[in-house]
């Protein structure tokens, strides 16, 4: 009977990570401010980490590469958030808004 529990099913974790990816894409396309887009990027990174850990736990039990790669993803996410917040604060100081659609100076 053990092993039939719902949390021992790989597909549920994969569906949750796919859902997080799609929610992140929806947020990036739909949010107006740069801060909301950054939060959506965090959702995508978390979905990727969950995917790695689930595949490591169910398909490759003897190595820890998925877990370690998720730790690397966390480190890269921390660095990315620091840089992105610096850029967003710079944009806010110069233009007095952080809306993604109105930033057109660097497009031309």
């Amino acid at each position, binding site marked *: 009977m053990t092993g039939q529990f719902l*949390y021992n099913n790989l597909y549920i974790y994969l569906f949750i990570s796919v859902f997080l990816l799609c929610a992140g894409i929806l947020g990036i396309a739909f949010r107006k401010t740069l801060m909301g887009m950054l939060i959506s990027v965090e959702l995508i990174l978390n979905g990727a980490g*969950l995917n790695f850990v689930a595949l490591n736990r169910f398909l490759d039990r003897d190595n820890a590469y998925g877990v370690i790669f998720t730790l690397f993803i966390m480190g890269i996410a921390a660095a990315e958030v620091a840089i992105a917040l*610096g850029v967003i604060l710079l944009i806010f100081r110069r233009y007095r808004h952080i809306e993604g659609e109105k930033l057109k100076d660097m497009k031309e």
Partner: protein
Amino acid sequence: MSLSELMSLAASISTRIGAYLPDLIFLAITAMTIIGALMTVISRSIIYALMGLVVVMFGIAGLYICLNSPFLAMMQILIYVGAITILIAFAIMLAGPMYKHPGEWRGPIRFAGALVAAVLPFVFLYKVLMRTDRLQAGVDEFGITTKEIGRALFDKLTLPFELISLLIVVAIIGAIMLALLSKGEK
């Protein structure tokens, strides 16, 4: 007599619930993650979106515990909830009260386009997942502990580990330089 019958009834009910309790907890964690993600994406206020992100982080930490990786769950809570979310909250406060005017949404046409752009990968990946062979190779215990993570990290993956630390140092210096540059330019 009736008391003993009541006791036996309560015992049978508790064992029946106990058989379903892990599933119930797992479903609660899953629902928490999904509702938090929806709240993050479609809430009007950016502060509520941030709160939804915190809910998602806690839900994913619970999923890591369900995946027998408590170290990773601890790191998730420490790094994401403790550091990144606080950092984003500080940046929201520094960038002014943007949450006063509720202009976070972009209109129904953009919402329809974004929904299509988000649902298409979901359908595609669903098809891919359903067409794969059964990935389930039996469920044994997951033997990776913190000791093995540390051993692999300092044994085989030393170079990526050091490169991550270098990347974080470069990112911190870059962020400080951006802040200083903007202050001097103003």
